[in-house]
């Protein structure tokens, strides 16, 4: 590991840091312990003073850089690619961390290509091996397995961090300094023009606005079994969500899909039924306040982020739960 700084893109949503952003700071702990690298959090947007202060107050942050530019709001991949790349050239990091959010996934790979950096997506662990090489753990094959990506010593690396994999950073005793930086965003990075943008649900309470969501996954076995999820959702006054695998299989419409290729949701309660918890799914729901997992497989990654879990056959548990809720 070089002692070049670690640059974290501190994404935020509605004026507060994304949960994964604070988790990313904690994710650097082992790398910092090994290399002594400084942790720099960059906050991009329009009015970012308040968000910058929130990042500066997190433990493990050495410096916060703010980048304000009109082209950064609303989000488009081109201007963000330009801004993150330009700031990275100024900071010269050995490691860049980007959240594996729906937006982060849209510019991270382009930034890595622009800077010629190695890249690994959806990291759930970040370690340093005996040789001093960075080792990134990622979940693959629908989260059924992990693979380790080892990056040789000095190669600059960009990693996207899966939500829910690390505990959020605590508050620091002294806040880190905040400095403003300028970046250049060329016209070539602004060739995509936003014509219109409307909320997904158009007024109706769909999954992106629901207070409670019951979501079903591949564990349901077939499309017809989604009835179990629908009945539970009615009993809980919840909206119905679906994993990417079930939408890909044609069981549910894309409008219901939660995850990196679907929607991001943040309800008070998220009940995952037969969903293993691939990082690509967690990306869409890890900001939920309370998570309940029902799954036959005790190794399902969803249990790692669940506040309450039932290891059992969903075909026994879910109808029983619906029956008791109706009473």
């Amino acid at each position, binding site marked *: 590991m070089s002692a070049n700084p670690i640059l974290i893109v501190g994404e935020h949503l509605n004026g507060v840091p994304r949960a994964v952003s604070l988790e990313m700071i904690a994710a650097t702990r082992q790398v910092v312990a090994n290399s002594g690298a400084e942790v720099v959090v960059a906050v991009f947007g329009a009015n970012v003073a308040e968000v910058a202060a929130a990042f500066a107050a997190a433990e493990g942050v050495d410096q916060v850089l703010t980048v304000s530019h009109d082209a950064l709001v609303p989000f488009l991949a081109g201007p963000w690619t330009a801004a993150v790349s330009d700031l990275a050239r100024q900071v010269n990091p050995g490691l860049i961390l980007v959240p594996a959010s729906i937006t982060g996934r849209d510019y991270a790979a382009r930034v890595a290509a622009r800077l010629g950096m190695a890249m690994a997506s959806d990291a759930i662990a970040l370690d340093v091996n005996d040789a001093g090489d960075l080792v990134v753990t990622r979940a693959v094959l629908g989260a059924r397995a992990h693979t380790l990506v080892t990056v*040789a010593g000095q190669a600059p690396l960009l990693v996207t961090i899966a939500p829910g994999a690390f505990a959020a950073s605590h508050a620091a005793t002294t806040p880190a300094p905040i400095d403003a930086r300028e970046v250049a965003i060329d016209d070539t990075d602004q060739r995509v023009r936003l014509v219109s943008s409307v909320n*997904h649900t158009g007024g109706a309470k769909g999954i992106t606005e629901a207070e409670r969501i019951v979501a079903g996954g591949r564990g349901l076995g077939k499309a017809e079994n989604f009835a179990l999820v629908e009945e539970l959702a009615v009993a809980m006054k919840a909206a119905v969500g679906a994993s990417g695998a079930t939408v890909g299989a044609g069981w549910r419409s894309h409008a219901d899909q939660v995850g990196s290729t679907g929607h991001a949701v943040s309800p008070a309660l998220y009940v995952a039924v037969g969903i293993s918890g691939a990082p690509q799914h967690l990306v869409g729901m890890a900001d939920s306040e309370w998570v309940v997992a029902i799954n036959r497989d005790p190794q399902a990654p969803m249990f790692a982020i669940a506040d309450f879990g039932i290891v059992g056959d969903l075909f026994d548990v879910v109808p029983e739960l619906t029956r008791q809720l109706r009473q």
Partner: protein
Amino acid sequence: MREEGPRIAVLIKAVVDPTAVTIDGTSGIVTVGPERVLNTYDAYGLATAIDLKEQHGATVTAMAAGPVATQDVLLRSLAIGADLAIWLDTGDQHQLESLELARLLAGLITDRGFDLVIAGQSTEDYESGQTGPQVAELLGLPHVSLVTQVDLEGRELTINRDAEGTKDVVAVDLPAMLMVLTGRNGEQRYPTLRGMMTARKQGVERVSVAGPQTSGRMTWSEPRAVQREAHGEILSDVPPAEAASRLIVWLKEKRLI
């Protein structure tokens, strides 16, 4: 084949067949079979390209890099309606970095000349979603991700996309790159028997990749099933009725119901 429409390159991946993955419960060893299938998002990308072909007389070239089994998936693409299929034979270099793969694909695309590049949003097996944006970057093209609908008028594309929390419409001029999420109402196209016969007759063009293409700065371990630690209250071996009632008590405590 009409000459005047846009030239479209569709990037395809022959992904690991999810039904060909087995996990040994005790050792955690994951075995991946040799079977490959057309990545679902790429199937939507291909359908989007063929829509444009029908509307504007585009030429559609399906391209895929990978092992031998990739050829079958490319034949399927021809049978579905692609005009040409090119297989970038990477031999057994399955451990290519996404940026190295993107360089190979971008080189091929530049060689052949294209107005529009279409890829699926992600892949179903390794799910990194890196290659598409990296190809766009190397070609100097703007990219639009999470595409659900595409309309072309002259050289201008109007694109519907599912962004985070919003449904957006964006516009961009050719040349450009699109990463397709579902395409036209999530409808795929399927090969006909006649299409399969014609595809076999036409065949897949093979482009061999000379020499090793990897810098060796990244290495990947074989996939392993691994345990993760839980932090919440997890009930195991509890009868369904009791588990359900304990969950309801917990939900009431948290004022969630």
